[in-house]
């Protein structure tokens, strides 16, 4: 089995390196094909491993080699395939296979075709390290690795100022969180003596609650950055500057869920500190509604989906925070499927619309892009949690978990958010595919995507439709590993909840259709009453948070840097050094006139020196002679 582990892990690396060979050359179709095949290989290997685990096989644990070892610290490159990681591996490899194949079509005309596949496969490799590592340091490698690839892929079109800016923003924001994670690692090491999961988890039970709390908080700070939780969320929306497949793979399905994975992976820690868990759940809930609210009014197709991702991540954290780790993981899995589907669908639309992102400028695309429409609708249904699509099962269980844990506020907010989700999802669908063909005003001739791209999306479609059936086998698989248990709510209550939720969601969908799927929708020009309302402005400006960051962090930092350089470094620190030198030199320059060259002066200096010495001698001589008297005198003075 180890063989498959290594194949699953290293096939993406090989793929990346292979594609990297051709980065400097023009587009080579075969790089895309080879890369896709290798990622597919990885997927197959993961599947074999999954089967092994499903059959009840022992988790596979290998230690490849030592990475760092000094003092008491020992960090190997160790990998583990257990129920949790194999789930993640499946998600990662499946979505990436789809995205790779899809990208062959999507990146068809791009100059950086080969480079794209190199980065993309490198990302998969990093992600595999992240999920497969058997220790926190290895996880951190993957953690930073996906950050790097995310940077490279967001800034893939590096000629665009906005793209590179967003890439840097994403990297730096993540770094802020990574510091928290790093501190968490240090705390773990100095308190448990190891960074291996199993060793650390065992030791956690011995640790005082305060320490555990700190560890939990710092690790979660790391998770907040990667999963774009408030207040580190701004980068995710900006990250939509990257190519759409990237958004699908990285900023929807895999990388952003790494934070959730971290919490799930550390469930032994978080289950010991429920108060931190509650905080996580609360923050997650807050982010769920916070992001959903921003999605309501946004006019950028990809950003809307990005906010919905953010919102769904909030759901996951809510679940994980409440101890429903398996639910979180399941939602993660389902979400990966339908959200990637949505993104790729959006990619099709963008392709068709020549990179137009404003759904108000589209409309009526249903006719030209039938398949895309179907997929987007199913994806949206799944997202909205309509029975029997994937989202229903996962999201509903989250609600159940909140309800059964008596966290009524969380439950209520999440429920409300589900309605918002349904609304904005179908607002998008309605704007894009229904109503007038507003795109004609802009002279665009849309066309359906390549057939193979649509085929490539089909596995995701399947997940979006049928992931629900996986719930029970999944539960069985992770039951032991995640300490999972079903949530039992009285049958009647459950039924009321189910129906109520569905009704609520259904109403939201209908409202969205009513409002946006008609011919009166026009391209907003900033004059309508709604656009000038306070709430709209607040939401469209993302609560002014990016603005605040720019004003209160970025600008002061830049100005302070400037001050440090021009004022402190040059004017104080360096000037002090030069000043000392200048004083020495200046003294020489000023006093050199002493050497006037006039013999009389020179002789006078000599005599003056002599007289000075004599004076000193007299003073000292007298002092020595009358030392007793002086002492008496001084003591009389009280010295």
């Amino acid at each position: 089995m180890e063989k498959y582990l290594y194949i699953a892990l290293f096939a993406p690396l090989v793929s990346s390196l292979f594609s990297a060979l051709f980065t400097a050359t023009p587009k080579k179709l075969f790089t895309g094909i080879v890369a896709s095949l290798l990622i597919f290989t990885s997927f197959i290997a993961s599947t074999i491993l999954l089967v092994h685990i499903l059959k009840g096989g022992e988790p596979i644990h290998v230690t490849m080699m030592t990475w760092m070892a000094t003092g008491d610290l020992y960090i190997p490159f160790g990998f583990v395939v257990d129920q949790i990681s194999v789930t993640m591996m499946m998600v990662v490899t499946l979505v990436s296979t789809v995205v790779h194949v899809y990208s062959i079509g999507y990146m068809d005309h791009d100059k950086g075709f080969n480079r794209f596949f190199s980065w993309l496969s490198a990302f998969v490799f990093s992600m595999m390290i992240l999920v497969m590592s058997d220790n926190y340091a290895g996880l951190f490698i993957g953690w930073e690795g996906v950050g790097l690839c995310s940077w490279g892929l967001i800034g893939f079109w590096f000629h665009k100022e906005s793209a590179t800016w967003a890439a840097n923003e994403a990297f730096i924001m993540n770094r802020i969180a990574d510091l928290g994670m790093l501190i968490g690692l240090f705390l773990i090491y100095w308190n448990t003596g190891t960074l291996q999961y199993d060793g650390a988890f065992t030791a956690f039970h011995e640790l005082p609650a305060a320490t555990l709390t700190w560890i939990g908080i710092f690790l979660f700070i790391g998770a907040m950055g990667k999963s774009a939780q408030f207040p580190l969320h701004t980068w995710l929306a900006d990250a939509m500057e990257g190519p759409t497949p990237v958004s699908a793979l990285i900023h929807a399905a895999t990388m952003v869920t790494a934070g959730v994975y971290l919490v799930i992976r550390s469930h032994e820690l978080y289950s010991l500190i429920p108060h931190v868990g509650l905080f996580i759940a609360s923050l997650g809930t807050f982010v769920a509604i916070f992001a959903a609210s921003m999605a309501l009014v946004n006019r950028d197709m990809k950003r809307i989906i990005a906010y919905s991702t953010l919102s769904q991540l909030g759901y996951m954290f809510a679940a994980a925070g409440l101890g429903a780790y398996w639910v979180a993981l399941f939602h993660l899995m389902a979400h990966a499927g339908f959200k990637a589907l949505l993104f790729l669908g959006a990619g099709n639309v963008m392709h068709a619309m020549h990179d137009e992102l404003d759904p108000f400028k589209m409309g009526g695309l249903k006719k030209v892009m039938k398949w895309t429409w179907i997929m987007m609708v199913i994806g949206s249904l799944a997202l909205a949690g309509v029975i029997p699509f994937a989202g229903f099962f996962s999201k509903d269980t989250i609600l159940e978990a909140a309800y059964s844990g008596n966290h009524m506020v969380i439950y209520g907010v999440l429920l409300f958010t589900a309605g918002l989700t349904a609304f904005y999802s179908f607002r998008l669908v309605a704007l894009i595919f229904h109503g007038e063909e507003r795109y004609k005003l802009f002279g665009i001739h849309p066309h359906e995507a390549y057939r193979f791209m649509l085929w490539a999306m089909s596995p995701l479609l399947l997940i979006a439709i049928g992931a629900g059936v996986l719930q029970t086998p999944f539960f069985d698989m992770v039951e032991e590993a995640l300490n999972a248990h079903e949530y039992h709510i009285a049958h009647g209550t459950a039924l009321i909840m189910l129906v109520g939720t569905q009704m609520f969601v259904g109403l939201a969908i209908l409202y969205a259709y009513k409002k946006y799927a008609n011919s009166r929708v026009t391209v907003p020009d900033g004059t309508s009453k709604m656009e000038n309302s306070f709430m709209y402005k607040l939401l469209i400006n993302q609560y002014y948070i990016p603005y605040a960051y720019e004003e209160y962090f970025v600008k002061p930092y830049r100005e302070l840097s400037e001050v440090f350089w021009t004022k402190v470094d040059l004017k104080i620190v360096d000037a002090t050094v030069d000043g000392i030198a200048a004083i020495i030199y200046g003294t020489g320059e000023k006093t050199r006139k002493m050497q006037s060259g006039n013999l009389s002066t020179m002789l006078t200096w000599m005599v003056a020196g002599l007289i000075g010495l004599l004076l000193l001698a007299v003073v000292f001589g007298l002092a020595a002679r009358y030392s007793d008297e002086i002492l008496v005198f001084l003591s009389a003075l009280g010295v």
Partner: protein
Amino acid sequence: MLAPINISMESLNVMTLAPMLIPVIGALLILVIDVFKGGLHKSLYVTLSLLFLAMDFFSLLDASGVFAKNGTVLGMFDVMLIDGLALLAQFIIVIASMLFIPLALTHKRFHEFSYPEFFALFLFMISGFQFMVATDNIILVFVGLETSSLALYTLIAMHNRDKSFEAAVKYFTMGALAAGLFSFGAMIFYALTGSVEINKIALVLAANGYADIGYVLVGIAFMLAAFAFKLSLIPFHTWAPDVYEGSSAPMAGYMSIVPKIAAFVVAMRFFEFLVHSDIVWLKIVLYAFVVITMTVSNMWALVQTDVKRMLAYSSISHAGFVMGAILIGTTQANSALFLYWVLFAFTNLGAFSMLWISRQKNLPAYQMSDHSYDKFAGMIKTAPVAALIMGLFMLSLAGVPPFALFWGKLYLISSAVTSGYTVLAFIMALNSAIAGYYYLKLVVYMFMKEPVMGNDGNMYGANATLALKTIIGIAAIGTIFAFVAINPLLEFITAFVYNSGY
């Protein structure tokens, strides 16, 4: 009828006088030769001088053999005193002189060297220095001092330029004042103790417990002023830069070494017992002299535009630095003084010789003075070997290891550290850093600037002859490979200093 005086030759211990007599004889011989046949070439006189200096050297070797076996030797009615200090100082004097005299064999003609009197005076001067260091008797010190000084004034003046005369007059006048101060100081000590021999003065003073401390201090003040003049301690230094500038480069180099070591030895004899008798005043005054001299002269050296004048100030600074050894007064410090001076002799003579071989008869328009910094600009391009060697001497003077002077500094600072002069040690160290700037300035000019227009580099060797090159080669080798010689030198010096009771 006076009783016949019976003195056995053995009790005279003529051996003690031999090293001084040899140069005197040589000088007389040169004069006699000139009487019989004038107009002989300078090479003859150079060789003769070298020969006599070599004989002088061997007689010193002989004397040091005796010293190593029997300890301190007195001779000539106990006037002559051959101890370790005397021998070490004479070694330095003679070796430095031997390195100096071939520098007369320049390519260009400088007329002082065509006079045999120059060489005669030179030899007289050497014997004067030797008398100074090899006696305990203040009268003889005074005589030696004046003999050498008067000869030196004349030698400077013989360079026969306006500036040399000016320098000679200045030096002479101030020297006369210093002589007055010295004799007055000697008079006070004679009045206090009835003796003119340093060890007796010390004994008498110690016996009456420094009863007249006030007068002693006045006496010391006069003596100190006289020595400070000779050692060019601030504010008695004013002659030094002018005289160095006015005299020829090798003469300046010579002056920075030989008269000073002689003065140092006398100062050591004179002040050591005072320092050790806990005269706080002296310690404070010496401390002030040391610190002020090395710091202030460093500052002045920074602002010079002429290399020779810069080296003059740097020599003042070095003298101040070494004066620290007298202040500290331990065996290690006194040994460090000699070690430092030996190494300084090589390096400084080398540096001045480098100036000497680049000496022009007529100054081109872009040059303000004989050895302005501009002259050396871009030297690495036009005369790389010369530039490297000059740079080497500069680095050595700055105290960059492993070149010669570093070891001197190391040992001297160490002696300060060992005897508790912590602050002094740091001041010494920091002064070395300040000094680094002006030595570096020359290196910068040589290595990092472009040559001035019209400078084709020929002048750097304009004055070079085989003899000059040899001397520079010896100095350079001595400077680079000093680290090999440090151990034997140190053992030798320490043994001599220790056995002389210092």
